[in-house]
């Protein structure tokens, strides 16, 4: 168990042990976690420590479940929230293949919808495409244990098309300080243009 690294075409990639969910490559019996297909993999390749091994994770914006499936390969429990019906439908299929992946068809902007289900978590991972990404992270702060990690993906263009991407990232990081101690902002290019992740610690 745990996140591992494999070599493919001369590059090192994170990889996990688990059944494939899409058409991802398998190297030495491990599912390659490709940085162009998962922002979390891009973060790992960028050297960010995402402590999901054996952790409890709240995943907001779970999409069709590809990245959550990698988390679920190594984590103790993954609560995966998605609100768009089409991806959520696929997320449920993926969750059926992972015993510790719990799909929640709910709106991450209204945490009360899942607050009877989600326990305290070590990691909040957020990749929602709506406006007000910082607000979502703040409203869900109550789920994160003291000292737990929040990793919030910010898409510059879904916030404001006119502002410089860097300004947008800083604005989100600044807002998050209400509930978190911001550690760093990691740009996800070249894997994802106009995307960055704010990495922060929960401080009560």
């Amino acid at each position, binding site marked *: 168990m745990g996140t591992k690294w494999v070599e493919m075409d001369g590059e090192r990639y994170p990889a996990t042990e688990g059944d494939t969910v899409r058409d991802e490559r398998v190297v030495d019996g491990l599912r390659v976690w490709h940085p162009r297909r998962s922002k979390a993999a891009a973060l790992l390749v960028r050297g960010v420590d995402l402590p999901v091994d054996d952790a409890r994770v709240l995943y907001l914006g779970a999409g069709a479940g590809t990245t959550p499936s990698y988390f679920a390969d190594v984590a103790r429990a993954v609560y995966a929230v998605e609100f768009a*019906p089409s991806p959520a439908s696929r997320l449920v299929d993926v969750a059926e293949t992972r015993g510790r992946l719990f799909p929640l068809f709910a709106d991450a902007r209204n945490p009360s919808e899942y607050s009877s289900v989600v326990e305290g978590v070590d990691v909040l991972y957020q990749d929602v495409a709506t406006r007000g990404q910082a607000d979502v992270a703040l409203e869900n702060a109550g789920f994160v244990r003291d000292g737990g990690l929040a990793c919030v993906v910010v898409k510059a263009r879904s916030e404001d098309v006119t502002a410089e991407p860097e300004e947008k990232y800083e604005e989100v990081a600044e807002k998050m300080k209400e509930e978190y101690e911001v550690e760093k902002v990691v740009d996800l290019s070249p894997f994802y243009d106009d995307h960055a992740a704010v990495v922060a610690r929960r401080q009560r």
Partner: protein
Amino acid sequence: MGSWFEHGTDADSLEESMEEKGGPDTRNMSADAVEKGIFETRDAYYDALHEATIEVARRRVDEAVDTAERDVVNAVRTLETLNEQMNELDERGRDWEEDTDRVPVEEVKVAHEALEDARDETREFLEDRTPELAPNLSNLAGPVLAARLVGLAGGLDELARMPSSTVQVLGAEDALFTHLRGDAPSPKHGAIYVHPYVRGTGADERGSAARAVAGKLTIAARIDRYAGDLRPELADEMDEKVERIRERGDG
């Protein structure tokens, strides 16, 4: 207000607790449940939670997909009706132009403006909702045509199961049956005619463009139905394909 397992450990209890929109004061559910003797081990707790979350999510997603589908199909039909009514009013308006003192021109103008507002609202609704239901199809066809295709097919599921040759002539059923009776050539396009890549391609290559567009839209519908994530590369592939067809037409 409490944890999902307080009044039972099945999917119904979980769903009820989600609808109550409240949670426990402390967030140690897996430990609490074992401590209270509701589950023997944490693994048993997670197993039950897994089963219940999957059942509830499946129920709610199926319901939401049905609702979303009905909403966008209704909206696109409303949009068509509004457009027809506005066209009709415009035509009558022209007939009346010389007779302004005997007809209620101002009132008709007000009615027309109301129709316009309704059309704009409906279009905005489609622009919001169709991408949620079918992100890739909307990205390639635009939300209005995407909704129209879903409606003509009788649902996203039905659309995703169709061969692309059927998608190509959806909405041209009359022409297709005339053709099948042997009275006319086969139609080259149905509703997809309004796609800029079909309408905007010269007559010689329009059939090829229609086939290429239908092929990509069919793939998009299948990804929307079976995967659900947005894949921007599909649009690039369609751009390139149509570009090649058009170059062939120019040469």
